[in-house]
């Protein structure tokens, strides 16, 4: 650990954004002995790449192995069946499952970010009586295995509420996207609240003050200054929530009957390849690789938001 850190840290010495990395490397390695660490840095990077990607690579091999030949898969698939990536859409309307998950995750992420931002602002920047206990109460939710919520929620969401009658088929939330968005938002809320609390609390008061003097409300300052400046934290909370909801298993199973047209999420799709005695591992693998793609895109997009050192240059203190 220590060596890794040191190596990596050393790279940042004299880091200059306006020079190309290669140019820099060539220049630096001639005159600076620290450059000797660079190969170490790449070694560490490659190590991480290997360890994180290998299982994924192996998953790809499983996907490419034709059904029924799942034997001795090591570095190459046992057989070669790229068609599986199309088959998964033929066996099941997998795209619909993906769409469902995508919509649910997007909405839930927005809900979580907005609601948790308010709470994070309060916990991170205001002081008021009962702050500690309330934070603990938020945290408390995460002490419980999701199953602990099962029975009451199952009853609740299958209860028919007259007010819902006009919107929902039979007045219950079951089999509607709300049945997923609401509980999933709540379940991922504590994490988001804690992340945002941490990041919001680190934005110097001076910037919020400046915004308020310029004429924003406290909330205005939150949305215009604190949130943009906490971009890394907000993006992280968003990515974690999105991925979490997208892949959520427990409530998804509970709140829909698994039909794609009833907003069943992607996991129902993936598990749709599981039979009573037999599992279409190749299809499951292919499906999950396909299912992970939106996330990879999301990460690429979100990280554009994670701009380094945003707070630099604003304050003199």
């Amino acid at each position, binding site marked *: 650990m220590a060596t890794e850190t040191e190596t990596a840290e050393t790279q940042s010495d004299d880091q200059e954004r306006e020079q190309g990395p290669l140019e820099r490397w060539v220049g630096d390695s001639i005159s600076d002995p620290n450059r000797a660490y660079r190969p170490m840095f790449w070694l560490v990077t490659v190590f991480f790449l290997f360890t994180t990607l290998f299982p994924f690579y192996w998953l790809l091999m499983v996907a490419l192995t034709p059904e029924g030949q799942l034997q001795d898969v090591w570095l190459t698939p046992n057989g070669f069946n790229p068609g599986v990536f199309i088959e998964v859409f033929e066996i099941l309307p997998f795209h619909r499952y993906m769409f469902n998950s995508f919509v649910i995750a997007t909405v839930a992420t927005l809900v979580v970010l907005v609601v948790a931002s308010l709470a994070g602002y309060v916990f991170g920047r205001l002081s008021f009586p009962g702050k500690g206990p309330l934070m603990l109460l938020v945290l408390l939710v995460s002490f419980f295995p999701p199953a602990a919520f099962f029975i009451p929620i199952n009853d609740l969401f299958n209860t028919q509420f007259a007010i819902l009658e006009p919107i929902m088929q039979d007045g219950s939330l079951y089999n509607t996207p709300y049945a997923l968005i609401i509980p999933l938002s709540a379940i991922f809320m504590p994490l988001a609240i804690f992340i945002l609390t941490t990041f919001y609390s680190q934005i110097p008061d001076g910037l919020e*003050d400046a915004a308020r*003097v*310029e*004429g924003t409300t406290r909330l205005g300052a939150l949305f215009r200054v604190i949130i943009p*400046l906490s971009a890394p934290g907000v993006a992280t909370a968003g990515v974690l929530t999105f991925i979490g909801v997208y892949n959520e298993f427990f409530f998804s199973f509970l709140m829909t009957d698994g039909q794609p047209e009833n907003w069943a999420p992607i996991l129902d799709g993936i598990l749709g390849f599981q039979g009573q005695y037999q599992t279409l591992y190749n299809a499951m693998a292919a499906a999950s690789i396909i299912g992970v793609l939106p996330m990879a895109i999301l990460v690429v997009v979100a990280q554009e938001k994670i701009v380094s050192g*945003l707070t630099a*240059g604003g*304050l003199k203190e």
Partner: protein
Amino acid sequence: MARVTLDGVTKRYEDVTAVDDMNMEIGDGEFVTFVGPSGCGKSTTMETIAGLTQPTEGTVHIGDRDVTRLPPKDRNIAMVFQNIALFPHMDVYENISFGLRLRNYEKEEVDRRVEEAADIVQLEGMMDRMPEEMSGGQRQRVAIARALVREPDVFLMDEPLANLDAKLRVHMRTELQRLHRRLDTTIIYVTHDQAEAMTMSDRIAVINAGSLQQIAPPLVCYNEPANLFVAGFIGSPSMNFVEAEVGTDELETENFSIEFDPATTDGLAPGDRVTVGVRPEDVYLDHTADGVEHSTGLIDARTDVLEPMGNEVFVYLVTGDDAETSMEVEGGAATDDQLLMSVDPDTEIDIDEEVKVVLDRSRIHLFDIETGDALRHGLVEVATTGSGTPERGVGDSD
């Protein structure tokens, strides 16, 4: 109406009282400068006026409204922060126009105002720089421009020019005064630059340790300081202070005496001890003292240190025969046998020279030795002293 009134404002932090029972009334359209040593509570007072800090006690009025509990956005103020506080995620244009955009001004109006402000602070052509790509002074100018574009009732400026070079500072001063005249806005200003305070303000508020010492026009503060603190704080280099005992017709200091009739002053009697104050520019070499009408007798001194400043030279004198060359030269804070004198740069004078000096009696101040309160300004009554006539700075004179 943008009178600003502070009524018994006190701000206490856990262990510090940053502002202590501050009472102050700043007139509509007045330009008031807060001065005082570092940490005396200037910024805190400003933050209270801005609404960024809730006073522990007391009330703040702007105009006739009690704004003590009003959020900053409803106070119609603009502020230049001491710590600059640019929004790091916005470029110069966005920073400057922030307040305007919040108020949904038309795009053209915003552009026009931003351009004008950028022009004033000489930042044309930097509109799309990010704060981190600018020099310290440039950042400070953006902060000023951000306040300038607004047309608030009250401007609060906390050391807005601290990081600017002399020339730019002079330019900015003029611009601020022009603005002040044009908008007739109330301006509350903090600066450590005495010249700035002197030339720009209608009144100066001298603050020490959280409490207001004097609020008066600049020359009054200079010529008739309310107490020892103000006397010592205003003017650079600082006033010379010497302890003295009141005699029957003189003030007896350790090394020299000054002609003085205690009867002319209430509450002073022979035998009392007082602090005598005299500014360096009121100390003269005997041969240049021609113009001084009411000079003291000759005082023997030895030059200790010379500090040439270009347009004047500060001479550190040691009075008294047994005085050794002082070990310490603390700018202006002379000990009892030290005396600081300012002379023309042409004056021929050398280190360790024995000289004779005189003081201008009409410019000698007496202070209570315990409380520091001013007892008397000028040992003789002179008609022409500038005191009492609040002359205003350059801003008024053209």
